[in-house]
Every structure is written in structure tokens, then in C-alpha cells.
């Protein structure tokens, strides 16, 4: 019996050893997945789950003022599409985006060209230009609001002194000055972002190309148009794409400077969704609106990115 027990014990130990080595082998083969699994699960939990939940919310009633979560089909989407404020916000977002990104590109390119060559004080200037990038957008909005707000903001007074004529512009409450004020604040903050990217692109253009052009008698404008711009195109598209992604989400400066007003004239899509979802608590409408705007913005960005990739391949 004793030998039998010993034999069974040894067999059991062998079986356990074999199990452990099978497990070890399996772990060895799948170590990569095991290591990334916690991060993947976390990402799934905080992105995929809320996304899925938001799809459900978009198709039911989820409104604090109306009890229950009855299925409403495409009712929430229809409510957003039929809301003139929502449609207006799309137009306003487009206006701000085109104006902001367009002006930031022009100014950013000009600054990058100016800072391309080394000169005394270049480092300090670059540091000064880059400072606004590190300021939170809500602080930028508050800062510009204090500058522009009548009657206590200094801008009207300073302009009056410069042009020697009273200036009484209501920068935050009158069209088109409210738009101009918001665009100014956005340009002030983000132009240097474009500048930095384009400056990096300029540094990557081989100097021999300009030298060869100069030998062939090309002027500076021709050099810029036929050498600099084409060489810079991938970086331009990169900068514009990144800025577009930021500009379509314009919220903080609107919140602090105009509150979406006067009326709803400066409602961007982000501000509209905030008001609808978090002030009025029409959560299902706001969620449906988020999906609609996501599809719209994704289509635009998809076209840009494809263009960018084509240029890179060329």
C-alpha cells in the first residue's frame, strides 16, 4: 500500500508539473497579450462602454424633466436636425473654424519664415510666442473677456488714444465684433502652434534647392512659391488638420467671452451640446447631436487625412 501511495503521489506530482509547464508555455506564447490586457481592458471600459451607452441614450428618452427611458427611434436626431439653433451652431462653427485656421496658417507661416534664419533675440521671441500655448483656453477666454468687456476693459480706451477718436465697440455683445473678439483670442493662443510645426518643416527643406534656384536666377518669391511651399505642403496639411480638430471643438473661449450670445449668435456645436445636455438636461438630444456632429466632422477630417497621405506618398 505504501508503495501504491508513493507511486500515486509521484504521479500526482508529475501531473502537476506537467500542468504547470503547459501553463508556463501558454503564458510564454501569449505574454504580449497578457501584458497589454489590463491597458486594453481599461481603454475598453472608458471608451467603448460609454460609446455603446451613448448609442442607447441617443435612441431613448433620457431627459430629466420627462420620466422614463421610452424608445423614441430617431426622434432625438430629428429634434436636433429640426432645431434652428443646432443648424445655426454648425454654421457658426464653420465660420470660426475657417477664420481661425486660415488666419493662424497665414500668420503662423509668416512667423515661421521670419524666425527661420538665426538672429539676435530669436530664442527669446520664440519663447514669447509659444507662451500662450501653455495657457488653458478657459483662462485665455477670461483674459480676453476682461480686455474687451465694456466699460472696464482697456482695449476701447487704448484704441481711442491711438486713433484719437472715441471707440465704443461692444466687443462681446455686438455683431460682428463678438466674432472678431473670439477669433482674436483663438489666433492669439494657437498661431504659435502652426508656427512651430511649419518652422520644423522649413528646417527640413534642403538648402541646396534654394542655392540651385538662386544660381538659376530665381527670385525670392519664385523660390518661395516653387520650392518652399511645395516642400512644406505635408507639414502645412498636418498643421491645418490638427488645428481643424481643435477649432471644431471651440467651447472655452465662447463660454467665457460671449456665453453663446448675444442670443444664440455665437453658439458653436460644442456650446450647443453643452447647453442642451448639461444646462437643460435634455441628455438624449445632446447625445444624438454629438453623434451627428461627430459624423459630420469625421467626414471632413477623413478627406483631409486622405489628402495628407496622398501628398506624403508623392
Amino acid at each position, binding site marked *: 500500500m505504501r508503495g501504491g501511495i508513493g507511486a500515486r503521489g509521484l504521479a500526482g506530482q508529475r501531473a502537476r508539473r506537467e500542468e504547470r509547464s503547459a501553463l508556463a508555455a501558454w503564458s510564454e506564447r501569449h505574454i504580449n497579450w497578457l501584458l497589454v490586457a489590463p491597458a486594453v481592458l481599461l481603454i475598453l471600459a472608458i471608451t467603448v462602454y460609454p460609446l455603446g451607452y451613448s448609442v442607447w441614450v441617443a435612441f431613448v428618452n433620457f*431627459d*430629466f*424633466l*420627462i*420620466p422614463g427611458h421610452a424608445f423614441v427611434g430617431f426622434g432625438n436626431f430629428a429634434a436636433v436636425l429640426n432645431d434652428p439653433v443646432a443648424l445655426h451652431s454648425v454654421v457658426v462653427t464653420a465660420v470660426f473654424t475657417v477664420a481661425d485656421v486660415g488666419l493662424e496658417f497665414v500668420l503662423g507661416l509668416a512667423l515661421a519664415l521670419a524666425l527661420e534664419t538665426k538672429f539676435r533675440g530669436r530664442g527669446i521671441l520664440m519663447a514669447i510666442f509659444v507662451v500662450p500655448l501653455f495657457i488653458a483656453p478657459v483662462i485665455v477666454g477670461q483674459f480676453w473677456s476682461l480686455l474687451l*468687456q*465694456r*466699460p*472696464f476693459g482697456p482695449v476701447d480706451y487704448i484704441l481711442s488714444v491711438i486713433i484719437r477718436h472715441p471707440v*465704443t465697440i*461692444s466687443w*462681446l*455683445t*455686438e*455683431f460682428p465684433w463678438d466674432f472678431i473678439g473670439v477669433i482674436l483670442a483663438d489666433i492669439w493662443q494657437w498661431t504659435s502652434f502652426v508656427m512651430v510645426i511649419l518652422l520644423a518643416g522649413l528646417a527640413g527643406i534642403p538648402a541646396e534647392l534654394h542655392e540651385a534656384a538662386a544660381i538659376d536666377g530665381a527670385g525670392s518669391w519664385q523660390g518661395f512659391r516653387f520650392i518652399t511651399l511645395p516642400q512644406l505642403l505635408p507639414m502645412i496639411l498636418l498643421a491645418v488638420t490638427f488645428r481643424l480638430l481643435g477649432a471644431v471643438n471651440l467651447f472655452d473661449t465662447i463660454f467665457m467671452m*460671449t*456665453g*453663446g*450670445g*448675444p*442670443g*444664440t*449668435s455665437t453658439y458653436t456645436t460644442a456650446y450647443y451640446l453643452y*447647453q442642451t445636455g*448639461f*444646462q*437643460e*438636461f*435634455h441628455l438624449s438630444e445632446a447625445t444624438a447631436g454629438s453623434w451627428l456632429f461627430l459624423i459630420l466632422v469625421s467626414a471632413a477630417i477623413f478627406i483631409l487625412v486622405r489628402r495628407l497621405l496622398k501628398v506624403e506618398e508623392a
Partner: protein
Amino acid sequence: MDEIIPDEEHERALARELDAWLAGDHSRRHVLAALLGIGAAGAVLPASAHAASRAGWLGRQQDHLLQQAAVDLASPDTPLGKAQADAVTASTKTPADGSAFRAVAAAKGKFNNVSLALTYEAGLQALEPRNFSGPLWQQLTGMNYSVVELAHPDLYSKAITEHIAGSGAYDVLDIEPAWIPSLADGGVIAPVDEYVKKYMNQADLNDYHPLFKFLPMYKGKRWGFFDDGDQLELYYRADVFGDPKLKSAYEAKFKQPFRVPATWDEYSQVAQFITDQMAPNVYGAVHFRKFGSPGNQFAFCQQFRANGGVFFDAKTMQAQLATPAGIRTLEQMIAANKASVPGNNDLDAVAAWVAWLSGKSAMLFSWPPTGRMSENYSQRSKAVNFVPTSKIAGKVGYAIMPGKYGEMASGFVKAISADSRHPEAAYLFAQWQSSPPVSLVRVMLPYTLRDPYRISHYTSPIYRSLWPSAKDYLINLSNAANFGITDMIMPGWQDYALTLDRMCTAVWAGKDPKAALEGADAEWNATTRKIGVAAQRASYQEFLKGVGCYPDHTVDAMGLAVHLT
């Protein structure tokens, strides 16, 4: 790891490790581990006799915290100090049947492990529970508290989000009376009738001004205690209106007496005249017209109803803004804007105060803190240093609103969160805080934004002694409340108010008033349909029964007016 590392020692240890690392004496792993150890040692608070000592770093931190938690008491020689002493007496000794005493007696020693989370509007409103009522309640009962500061709109939205999440994050909520229907129907707040029966002194309930007494009632239940008499009244420059040259010029021009205006048309006329005569030194009026700060809905609603407007057709629930009353209201407001300080449409309530206190305006209608600031009473507190010293102290008069009917604009109610894990404790704190002697102190604090709302506040000899015209100020607040009209207390008020605010700012920017009103009507009708026409009809009927819904239902119209001398 058991020893306490004071600040200097901590710094020296950090410096040693970093120097060694920079010199290459330690590996990176060693430095990180050592830094973690130093940091943990500095953070760990061992339960040792040495930890209890006041001599070390921990002792200094504890002293600092205790100082923060100490009640901010004024000298007993001062009116405020006397009121505070009376509040402590009422809470601990007599009258034993007072609601303050009853609340403390019921709570004392019973809830030592409870910490109440109180929501308050961020800024000045939150100073009071931090400096006075919070620490005093803690000393009297042993109950802990924490103050959650929120922007005004978040007092509504955060209460709802926490309720949806079921977090139980808040215990006592500061809410507007106009939110009660939404929050009660949504299950965010709990009725307090059972606790009132058990703990409240009925006479203390009757001490409320009649306008405020019934505001926390909804569908036959009580949903909290009214706690802030936000009655708008008109403040005017007595020196300007008493100027004999202006008087004769006005009477010569208009063939009418030069007086504090009694109607809204007269208001615009008087304001424009003063601007024409005295600008840029003084303008006729100043208003807060900026979107959301706090919003144009209050000004519009009071004038609209004074002009005979009604919000809805009671049968069809169709909005009635785009009517002659609505157009007249907006035209009057536009005329008032023209007569006001430059940049009037950009001003929020605080900026309007700045212009008023700087002597730039002859008239301002605003909340009761205006009166206290005008006499430099509020500015005694460093917390109110964002408004300038008043240049018009001693020159301010008080009147009820032109058109007679001023808005009880916003206000606050102390409500109990339906998700609170300590509802009885929360209730007792709310009862004590709003009791007559304690609330008198709270409306007398220099930095307070809480305004008088009890008869005992208006008649308090202590409050009346705060500045020479304080008695007139209090009497006028009570008179204004006699003719006060409330916000539209029904579900969806936030949506309706937002529409009005947006409509007004669009008109200030040049939109045609009729078109703006029609747009607002359409938005209101959409909101009504969304919530449910039948449900809103029932809610509107409830509103129509309430005191202060319309001019024919004011405290005075219902024969309940309080006449004070």
C-alpha cells in the same frame, strides 16, 4: 517610517538623495525608492504621543486646521457680535421651544460620525457656512460638515447629475424656489413635513414674510426652508433727485414732478433726462444685461407682468410673450439701456455694482446687498474687496420698483437631498440655520449675500442700527416684498428662463423685438410640448394659486401685507 519628519528635515533628506544621484553615487532605482520613502514618511501620520504634540510639524498643521474651523465671531460690543451671542444663547439655553434650541438638542451627540455635505454658490455665499454656521454647528452638536462650492447653474445641474448617479454626494442643497417643481418631481429633493411636525416651532414658520413663507410648498408638501430674501428693489441717489436745478429743469420740460419714477415709462424718461444733464459724470441708470450674469429673465419678467402680460394661455398653454405687453416691455428696456452707462449691455451684476458704487449712476434696481454695499457696510470685510469703496454712502434712497411689482429674483431654499444618507441630520442643520436668531446673524454678516426674509429680520433693532438709514432699507425691503412677484415656479423654468435671456441679448444686439418675442414663444411652446402640455397646464394652475404669481396675487392684493414702521 514611524518618525515624523518636519518640513526642514524633509527638505534636507530630499536634497541629500538628489545630490547623491546627481553625483552618480546612487542608482536611479535607489533614488526613486528613497524618495518614495521620504515622501511616505512625511505623509504618514502615526498615532503616537509625539503626533499629538503641538510642538512638531503635525502640531502646526493641526493648529492651522483648528483655526480654520474656529467660528468667526465679532466683538460682543458690536451689533453683529450681539446678534451672534443671541444666536448661541437661543441654540443652547433659551427659548427652549425655539427651533434653534430644538434642532441643537435633537442633534447633539447623536450624529458625531456624520459629515454633512452642503452645496453653496461659489464665492461669498460659501463663506458664511465656512466661517460661522458650519463651525458653530460643529461645536454645538459634534456634527461635521463640508462645503461644496458650485457655480450658480451647477447648483441645479450637479444636484441632478449626482441624483442620476445615485452617489449620495450631497446632504443639504441650496436651490432656487423655482427649481422645486423640477427637483421634487425628479426625486432629487425630499419633503420635510414629518420632520417639521417633530422639530419645528410653528411661530418660527409664521415669522417668514408672507411672500417667502409658501415658496417651499409644492403639491401640498414642504420641500425645505426659504433662506434668502432676493427681493429686487430700486436704489436711487437722493442727492440727484433732491437737486433743485434738476427739479426745475425737469418740471419745465415735462410738466411733471421730478421724482423717483413710479412707472417704467417714467423710469426711462427720468433716466434719459439725468443722462442728458449730467453725463459723463452721472448717468440715469445702470443695469446688468449681460447673458447669464445672472440673466435678463428677472428684469423682463417683472416688467412684463407689471405691463399686464401673462406667460401662458391657461387653457391652451400657448406662450403669450409676443403680445403688446411683451413688445412694450422690450421697448421700455431698450429705452432704459439707451439712458444708461456706456457698455450697459455688457455688464453683469457685479460690474453694475461697481458703476453704482463709483457714483456713475442715479438709479439701480438690484438685489438687497446693494443697500449694504452702498453704505460701505459690506466692504468692512476683505472678502468683498472686489467692489470699490462706496462714494455714495449717505446719499442712497430706497424705493419699490417702478410699476410697483418687483421680482423676487431667484432666492434660495435649503432643501434635503433625497439621496442623503443622513436626512434627519441634514434637516436639523437646515432648521437651525434658518431659525430666526441664527438666520439674523447670517443676513447681517458684512460679506453675506443672504438677505433678510423674516419679520424678525426687518424689525430687528440690532440690524436697524447697522447704518443710519438701515431702518428705511429694511422697511422698504418688506414693502417691496408686499408687492413682490416670483419667478415662474414650474417644471422647465430653467429652459424658459434661458429662452428669455437669449431673447433679450438678441434684442440688445439689434434684433427686432417682435421677431425676438415670436422666436421666444416658439421655444417656450417647444419646451412645453417636450415636458407635456397636460402636465404643464396642471403645473401652471398650481403656480397661479401661489402668492406672487401675478400682480393680482401679491401679498398686498391678498390682504396679507406687512406694515412696518
